[in-house]
């Protein structure tokens, strides 16, 4: 009986890692949604409906997603929470500066980040004109 070839072994490891990643993603999503109220779940559902496929994959995996500003072409990372959650990224993908703008009414986190996404993708200058900036605490 011969040993598996290096390429076959590599494929096996990749398959196993992909399977572990899928399980980890499923557990993270389950934990996040288990702690949510009905309103928050509705907010997440609406957000998921409006994210692009790439943004949705990123959100499911990491709990954040990136958007491109319509005016400057800059990339912003929006994290899933209700404030101080937007980071302008530099060319290397590091957090350069934080931006904070939110809907005037109290909304669930899913609605807040969806409003921020649409604002940056359709009216970036107007959104940043009302925003406050802050220094990211870590990279």
């Amino acid at each position: 009986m011969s040993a598996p070839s290096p390429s076959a072994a590599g494929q096996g490891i990749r398959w196993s890692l992909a399977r572990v990643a899928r399980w980890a993603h499923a557990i993270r999503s389950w934990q996040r949604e288990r702690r949510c109220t009905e309103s928050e779940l509705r907010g997440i559902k609406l957000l998921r409906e409006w994210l692009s496929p790439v943004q949705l994959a990123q959100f499911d995996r990491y709990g954040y997603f990136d958007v491109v500003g319509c005016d400057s072409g800059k990339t912003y990372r929006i994290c899933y929470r209700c404030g101080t959650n937007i980071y302008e990224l530099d060319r290397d993908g590091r957090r350069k500066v934080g931006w904070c703008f939110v809907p005037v009414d109290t909304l669930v986190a899913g609605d807040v980040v969806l409003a921020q996404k649409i604002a940056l993708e359709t009216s970036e200058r107007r959104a940043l004109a009302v925003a406050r900036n802050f220094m990211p605490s870590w990279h």
Partner: protein
Amino acid sequence: MATQIVMDHSGDTRHYFDANDAKALLEAEERFLKLTGAGFTAAVRTASGEPAVTRRFDPAAGETLFFPRLVGG
């Protein structure tokens, strides 16, 4: 059925209407004007799925999303 989705404290409230029904269409237009007049932004999705802000009521829009005015946090 066309839908107007309004973000609120409960997540969202959805208003469904038949775009072929003149009365329902008028009500939807009035809702659009009332919300945008109160500072809400109306957004629709383009054919490619990207969001676009709209300032006029579009009877042909399948789904319109309204979110409140944005302020510095």
